[in-house]
């Protein structure tokens, strides 16, 4: 959760800026969009393919929002997909950042899920005998 809050200012700051500047939103997808773990809290491993359509001009980077670490960078349409070995125990946001103004122009969320286990509730309620 703390990680999420650390991205929050960035998202709040970035969201309105690219909405107003870029009329045509950039298509940015991750396949698959979720990573399935067997248990909650387990690190989830998944090869994720990122695909995008960036404008012809400008320099862009694919950034792991959590720590602002660029995974790869390119000029214009030189690169349109990237295969990434995802590993994390929590939902992670990836964003395309324009290097001209350091604004996130698009972002995608890879959701970490786990197998749902119904909580064991004793019929007697609160008593843990």
């Amino acid at each position: 959760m703390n990680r999420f809050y650390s991205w929050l200012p960035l998202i709040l700051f970035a969201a309105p800026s690219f909405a107003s500047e870029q009329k045509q939103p950039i298509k940015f997808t991750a396949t698959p969009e979720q990573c399935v773990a067997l248990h909650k809290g387990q690190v989830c491993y998944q090869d994720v393919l990122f695909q995008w359509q960036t404008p012809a001009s400008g320099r862009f980077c694919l950034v792991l929002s959590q720590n602002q670490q660029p995974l790869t960078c390119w000029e214009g349409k030189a690169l349109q997909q990237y295969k990434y070995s995802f590993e994390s125990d929590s939902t992670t946001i990836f964003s395309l950042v324009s290097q001209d103004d350091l604004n996130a122009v698009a972002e995608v969320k890879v959701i970490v899920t786990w197998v749902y286990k119904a909580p064991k509730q004793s019929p007697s309620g609160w008593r843990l005998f």
Partner: protein
Amino acid sequence: MKKLIVSLVLVVLASIISLGWSISEFATLQNPDTDSPGTSEQLAALKLVGVALSHTLDEKNSIQQPFIDNWNRHNQQQLSLTPEASFALPPSLKRQFNSEQSLLLESDEGISLHYLLPNTEQVLNIKTQLTSPEENDFNHNELYTMLFYFGVVAILLIWVSPLIKQLLTLSKTTQAFGMGELQQRIAVSKTSYIGTIETEFNRMADRIQQLIDDNKLLSRAVSHDLKTPIARLRFGIEVLEETQNDQLRLKYFQRLNRDIDAMEELVATLLNYARLDQANIQPELQAIEINAWLEQKLSVHAGGNLQLEYIPYSQQIIVNTDPKYLSMQIANLLSNAERFGQSKIMVRVELVDNTTWLHVEDDGHGIDEAETEQVVKPFVRGQQSRDNAGHGMGLAIVKRIGGWMGAELVIGRSLELGGAKISLKFK
């Protein structure tokens, strides 16, 4: 001890039952589960819907997308279809999904249901905003359970605190007693858990103190009463050494003998008194008719210088006593009366308010009220008996026997004869 065990069991049972009941009531008040369906109920309902939807949508050439769009517009639960190939799962989970055709996943954003559509080779996803209720409820349950156990502990502590206090008092008092503060006693309250122990301690302390007091008194008295004959013996022997006259020597020898006799008598009296210690005696109590018994005793006893008058009670009175020790008491009382009386002794049996009294009265000087407490102590002689023979043991013996046989000694003044009136009050 019985009280302690019973109250312990009661307190434990009562606290468990009452705490358990009240926490249960409180928990049901706090969690009105019955009003709105919980997560598990909603999930169960969604599962049914999901199965139905998956069958409906799993048809080739059916118009799926408009239906899904429509559904998503009107419902909180969002439907979507993904190709089976891009629904990535770990191998073990994949096998399970293929066989069960359904899967429940959970993420930070909520629980989602997934159904395999074998015909169209797609996966139906139903995203919900439900979250696992586990943590919240678990915390509550933990809290209630802690509350319960702490409550039981608190109640037990409250219950046990007087016991701890009593034990501390007992320990402090025994310590002080052991250090020589013989007057230390425990104030026994009716509600005390260890009342019997406290009472027994007090009795023990009483007894030890009495023994020590007796010991002191006896040693003081013995040393005092032995000093006189010993001094006389020493003087007598010195005189004997210097005397050549056979007749005088004979006379002095007789005197020495008398002194030795006096010492012997004192030792015998002491031994008698010591033997009357309750620990060494098992009185054989039996029911006797006091009028007839006393008459027979007095007829044997008669023979003193004074006139003895016996007034029995008009009715028969049965008294539970040991005749051997009762006659010892009466003999002592009679010898006292003979020693101090002028001319007459009166023995009287009386029944007042269902209590039997035996009075021995004389026409001597009597015992002053201020002296009554002193004269019953061993080796204490009253004002009137300073020049009298005897060691002051008579009343002490009577009182000691009366103490454990249930015949209390009461000292008063005779209205008819004017002298002492010494009475035994039978229980």
